[in-house]
């Protein structure tokens, strides 16, 4: 048995349980911390995967309940779970079906507890083509990852994976940024190309957004370089870069790996803020199977 603690969040998706089996075989964790969101709407869907999780892990499992409607309570639960079980350990975070809030809270606590931290992401085998979640709450800043706001400075909202127009609407409506910078998933897939062109047109017309770029969400290093490079550019007529003159709000709407990139940006530039949109309604049939895996390490 290794010295690795696996962090995961219970989900109804197939890739959750298939990913857990793979992680157990490949990493042989000494302990698995399973965070369970209390959500009556999805509780039943998760029963099957939960039963399998229990039989797979038995005594090596620690279950922690969290409530997305109580962010301050969640903060302290994560703090306690990591300080009790993860201090100085090797941590593997399976971000595949985690919320951004849980990803960032896990990474934050890994840093706090001096953990050697790796992450793993399993793409699903396919998508149903439908929506994944709806009924968003008000966008929020993460506690302690909310940056250092400058007085009198305008806001720049940076979003990775901006195809979700409705969520974009919600972010822009709530944060009222002066500038918005969007990063779209690149690739030769016709779906991505079509989405990129369509979204560009729509966003230009609707919000007059001019700062739109393509990036590879699954390559966190090149994404990091590209995003930081764009933030370090100067705005027309301004002697300072976006990074210097704006209060920057980061938000990840696309692939979960982009949440890793944004966390790395926050680590390097702690005056930027990480934000997320809580959701209350999910689509059970959003994805199926398990596909490619992406792994990486976080250097604090």
């Amino acid at each position, binding site marked *: 048995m290794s010295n690795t603690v696996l962090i995961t969040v219970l989900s109804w998706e197939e890739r959750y349980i298939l990913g857990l089996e793979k992680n157990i075989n490949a990493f042989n964790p000494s302990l698995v911390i399973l965070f369970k969101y209390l959500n009556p709407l999805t509780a039943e869907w998760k029963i099957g995967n939960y039963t399998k999780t229990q039989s797979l892990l038995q005594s090596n499992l620690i279950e922690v309940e969290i409530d997305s409607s109580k*962010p*301050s309570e969640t*903060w*302290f639960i994560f703090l306690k779970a990591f300080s009790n079980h993860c201090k100085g350990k090797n941590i593997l975070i399976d971000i595949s079906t985690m919320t951004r809030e849980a990803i960032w809270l896990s990474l934050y606590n890994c840093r706090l507890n001096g953990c050697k931290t790796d992450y793993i992401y399993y793409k699903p085998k396919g998508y149903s083509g439908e929506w994944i979640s*709806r*009924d*968003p*709450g*008000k966008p*929020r*800043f993460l*506690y*302690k*990852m*909310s*940056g*250092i*706001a*400058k*007085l*009198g*400075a305008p*806001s720049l909202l940076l979003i990775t994976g901006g195809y979700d127009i*409705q*969520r974009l*609407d*919600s972010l822009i*409506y*709530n*944060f*009222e940024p*002066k500038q918005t910078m969007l990063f779209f998933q690149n690739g030769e897939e016709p779906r991505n190309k079509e989405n990129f062109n369509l979204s560009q047109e729509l966003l230009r017309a609707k919000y007059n957004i001019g700062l739109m770029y393509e990036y590879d969400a699954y390559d966190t290093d090149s994404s990091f370089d590209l995003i930081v490079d764009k933030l370090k550019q100067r705005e027309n*007529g301004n002697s300072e870069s976006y990074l210097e003159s704006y*209060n920057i*709000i980061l938000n990840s709407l696309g692939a979960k790996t982009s949440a890793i990139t944004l966390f790395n940006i926050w680590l390097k530039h*702690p005056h930027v*803020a990480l*934000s997320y949109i809580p959701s*209350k*309604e999910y689509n059970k049939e959003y994805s199926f199977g398990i596909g490619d895996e992406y792994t990486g390490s976080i250097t604090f």
Partner: protein
Amino acid sequence: MSSKKPTNPFEYEAAVNFATDELIEYFVEDHNYSRFIQSGRNIFIVGERGCGKSMTLLYNSFQKQIRKAEVEKRNFDYSRIGVYVPCTNTLFFKKESELVNNPFKASVLSEHFFVLAIAYELVSVLSSIENSCSKEKEQELKSELNYILNIDLPEDIPIFKALARYFQKLNSETQNQVNNSEESTSDKCVSFYSLVIPILQIVKSIEKLKDTHFLFLIDDAHDLNSHQIKALNSWIAYRDHSDFSFKVAIAKVRKHSYITSSGSSILEGHDFLTIDMEKPYQNKFSDFGLWAKDILERRLEKFGLETKDANKFFPTNPKVEEEMKYWENVVRNKAQEIYKGQDNYAKKISDFVYKYARAEYFRNRSSKANLPQYSGWDTIVNLSTGVVRNLLYPCYWMYDKEYSTISDKEKDSKEIQVQFIRPAYQDEIIKDKSKELWGKIENDLFNNIDNCSTKQATQIKNFFEQLALLFKERLMSPESSEPRAITFSISARQEVSESQNNEIDEWLRISKEALILYDRKSSSKEFGGKETIYVPNRLLFPDRGLDVIGQHSRVSIRAAEIYEAATKGKKINNKEVSQQTLFDYE
């Protein structure tokens, strides 16, 4: 902010994105209460997005007023200085105070950041005042700051620039402390009384500013946390307002608390006045009608268009105008017969025509005809539902369409002049935008509005469908006594359970946040108290063939009918609807 020439006279950018000169040129002071802002009273400006709250506050800020004085070639009057404080800075989205387990400490931390934002904007304004004091006076003020507030400022930097830097540093230090300490607090917190009031006292020793009253223009105060709102209310309750007052813009949909930090309340009339920026009347003779005309005509003029009259720029379809006149005459003749020989003959005739003439036009259109034609300035003003952004929104798209057509024809012309918007284009845009708004109800509510489930979105859609149907039936029915009543109130709340009432309240909240419903207070005839009148966004009406020009009436709908309409798509029973004439809006 740099000024760029707009490409469309009806740009409806957020107020903060306007260049100073544009904002000064476009702002209309008449026919609203915006001059109240310059008074020494505390004022709450209430209204939904787009009704001009930010524009009003920004217009009264020092930066805009001094530029205005410069443009008008007059000396600036230093007796009033407006300090604009937006609550949309990311500082106000930080939530670490929720991690502090001691409510008092959480309130101190929350007030600290709010006070720093105010102090920073105050000294930014003061640093932009030229020659406010001599070098000697600056040294004297710096000594005072050191003595009273223990703030040690460098000698080689002008006092207010140095103070701005000091606040920036303090702000950064405290955020760092909060982010990196276990307790999430800071030992460097300041308060309004420990920082802003002493600074104001020191500033008042400057000759140029000795009689100045500072107007703190707090925008988007609904984004403040509960501790900050209580702190703000406490400052408003402060008895001596000779040196400063607060003008606070808040969204109507989110209930504002008027409780102070000590638990008491501030009272309207005593501690503050309220200005409702949404206007109940939109006809051409109302304050809003006149204001809207001023806004539009000023934009036409500033844009350099030859046509400066809103009525001429947005002409009514002549055929519709002719038919309207025809039915007005028919109704007038009928009224003359009915009231022949009676007292108040002229008034009775005019009331009858007012009530039924337009309805007759809608009723007598061929059953095979498409939707009615919508055009004309009066229609556009009524479509706005009393909200400035709603007024500019269709105009923007109409202008773009007309301009595109002309520029296609006159490709070589350097100066393309739009003389007017042809009625067919007005009609097309109005119907397109109306359809879009229905689409928003159907597809977007659960995505865009905080705490709106898909179930609630469907219920709201059902209710609006049934409401439109009700209004349509009333418009078309010859038996309707108030056929163009397009607002409603809710009656018999006691007939539904508490949880059903709560559900109805949530639908109303979501609808208001989505700007598809507005509300006004009115005196209730039955009980003499206040009653809420609900006004659907009139842009919804063209898609359903309704008249956007309503009459001073409301339809009273029982809560049970609303509940059934929303949850089961059940028709609202026309027979159970009562009408009350409404000439008593406030």
